[in-house]
């Protein structure tokens, strides 16, 4: 039987386009020390360290966990390095949690980061290789056609994407750690922003950020810190092939299976009713309605209606991305963990200005690659 596991400490950096004041080690330590302080622990209290990040080419440092081991107090301890593309921050949290739920460790520090400004995100994500297809579209160009496919399937009107862009940025104003703070954003400024990959406009796309996230996870008899623990009620990862005949990239099976698994573990049958807040990987505005459907918050084709009705707004019945989401901060390797971390903050009641009242259950989701890698967890204030 799996042991109970809880988040007992969270930490993150101030995310910025360029953290030019700090080294990579300094940046991950900023998040890790904050998480330790939150848990009222020191380096020596930690049994193992699990670190995640996206491609090593971002920073030009191969398997950087080797260099970062002493910076994260990992000397003499087990250390694992996870890489599952954009979902990595979520997968890293889950790998760390299993070290506890398996009964092997009592307290695990997990960290994820990306220092994208050391190079260039567009370059690092699509390093040109011989014989490869000419670089036609860039990062957003991969996703824009799927967004169009979603619009066609669901009949969603064009302004839905803009609503998400505005909502998440207004949420970010409440979050002092968010990269983008755009207090003047509204539907009009989004509509007037540059069209990048039609139908996707500049303000509907995520930024490129430097940043790190960290959490301390603990077994039931090792819980510490002043905020209450956020208990893991369910967690899962799912992958499907990148490309295959008949693949549904708008509503990927791996995402549906992953959420079904997590809900089953958490005993959730009606996600919209039973989940108080969700933090979901939405790097392009339209992924909110797409994931609303994929995560079973509504029937197929109805995701955009929830967004339009304000259900996912800060004062809606199922607030999504109270932190400002990936649309407001995107250190790729850490982006998934920031989703997992935000729901821990919500459950623990430590989210300050972006706290939703009375959160007892929350869903964190991350996805990566071409929507083929998924990781999710459900946290709750009650012991599972």
């Amino acid at each position, binding site marked *: *039987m*799996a042991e109970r596991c809880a988040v007992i400490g969270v930490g993150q950096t101030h995310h910025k386009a360029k953290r030019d004041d700090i*080294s*990579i080690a300094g940046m991950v330590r900023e998040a890790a020390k904050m998480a330790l302080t939150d848990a009222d622990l020191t380096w020596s209290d930690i049994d193992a360290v699990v670190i995640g990040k996206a*491609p*090593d*080419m971002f*920073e*030009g*440092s*191969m*398997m*950087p*966990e*080797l*260099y*970062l*081991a*002493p910076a994260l107090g*990992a*000397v*003499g*301890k*087990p*250390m*694992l*390095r*996870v*890489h*599952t*593309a954009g979902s990595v921050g979520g*997968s890293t949290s*889950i*790998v760390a949690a*299993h*070290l506890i*739920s*398996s*009964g*092997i460790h009592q307290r695990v520090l997990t960290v994820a980061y990306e220092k994208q400004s050391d190079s260039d995100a567009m370059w*690092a*994500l*699509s*390093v040109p*290789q011989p014989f490869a297809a000419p670089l036609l579209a860039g990062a957003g160009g991969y996703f824009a056609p799927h967004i169009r496919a979603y619009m066609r399937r669901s009949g969603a009107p064009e302004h839905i994407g803009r609503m998400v862009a505005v909502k998440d940025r207004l949420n970010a104003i409440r979050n002092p750690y968010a990269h983008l703070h755009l207090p003047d954003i509204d539907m009009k400024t989004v509509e007037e922003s540059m069209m990048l990959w039609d139908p996707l406009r500049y303000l509907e796309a995520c930024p490129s950020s430097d940043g790190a996230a960290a959490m301390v996870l603990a077994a039931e008899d090792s819980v510490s810190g002043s905020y209450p623990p956020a208990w893991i009620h369910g967690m*899962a*990862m*799912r*992958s*499907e*092939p*990148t490309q*295959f005949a008949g693949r549904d990239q708008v509503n*990927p*099976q791996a995402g549906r*299976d*992953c959420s079904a*698994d997590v809900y089953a573990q958490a005993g959730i049958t009606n996600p919209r009713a039973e989940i108080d807040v969700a933090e979901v990987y939405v790097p392009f505005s339209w992924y909110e309605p797409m994931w609303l459907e994929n995560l079973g918050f509504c029937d197929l084709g109805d995701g955009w209606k929830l967004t339009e009705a304000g259900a996912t707004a800060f004062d809606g019945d199922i607030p999504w991305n109270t932190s400002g989401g990936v649309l407001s901060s995107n250190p790729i390797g850490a982006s998934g963990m920031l989703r997992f971390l935000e729901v821990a903050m919500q459950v623990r009641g430590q989210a300050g200005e972006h706290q939703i009242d009375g959160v007892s259950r929350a869903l964190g989701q991350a996805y990566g*690659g071409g929507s083929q*890698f998924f990781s999710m967890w459900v946290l709750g204030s009650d012991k599972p």
Partner: protein
Amino acid sequence: MSAAANADRSVRRPVSIASFAQSDNVRRENERNEVEMLQPVVAEVFANIGIDKDDIHFICSGSTDYLIGGPFSFVTALDAVGVWPPRAESHVEMDGAWALYEAWVLLQEGEIDTALVYSFGRSSPGNLQEILALQLDPYYLAPLWPDPVSLAALQARALLDAGKATEEDFAAIASRSRKDALGNPKAQVSNDISTEALMKDDYVVSPLRRHALPPITDGAAAIVLAAGDKAREWSDNPVWITGFDHRIETHSLGARDLTSSPSTAKAGEVAGVADGAVDVAELHAPYAHQEIILKEALGLGDGVRINPSGGALAANPMMSAGLIRIGEAAARIAAGEAGRAVAHATSGPCLQQNLVCVLEGGE
């Protein structure tokens, strides 16, 4: 399983190495890409025990993007398995031995019973001496491009200076490894050559001569783990993992005692190496002198058969060489040549990170 191991780790769920496969280890796999290199290995690891991908509950792989100079090589590698319907799957940017550890952790919870672990790497497309320099501190070390052979040579020198070994010892290890590799059809370097003859090799970086270095290898490997009823269903004589741990040291070579491996010693202690007699040890010692350090750290006496496969001196496929040690050690038990074996994997410069897996036959 020994009583002592049981007493110490009574909460641990027995997990077996149900199947192991590896590609030929070659200097240059110049035709097939990663998927094409890996696919037959995955097919073989299933065929060995008559299962297919639908019997697998969890998949974990180990690889690194830098070997071929393009991001996300692990993503396309999944095509070698065919992850449809979608699977619980994860990837470590580490040797496959750590992927196996992650899978073993998951199996401890008892929710699932089987896992596929694989790793792959082609070192031949690039210049490994330069690529591995990028594993070093990106501010103080990598800009100087210290190559892994030079760093290993610093460690070998420290060992010689400490009076813990001689250059002849390095050659003797290479001689024994190559001779043993004659019995390993997957080995890349194998011959019957004496220590004296090897001592005539030139230095590559003094004090390391050619024979003390690992070959540059392209290859892939896979293991299927099974627990519970599946373990017995897939084997009449399961090989059990009875102890498993890994530890990392500081990165700064100048803050370490390079002549010892406290991380290996600690991992060995937690894994319970000393809880019973060890018949065979498969040690991931890419450089000959590192075997001496590892033997000491694990407290392995002269009666222990070291690297009957020929070890990493006979084939050192990046990201798989550690996983292969576990597969080879399990194979010795499955073949009835050993009752209890230790497998070890390493990563990073001068044995910075080490993993120890104890394997036992019997019920």
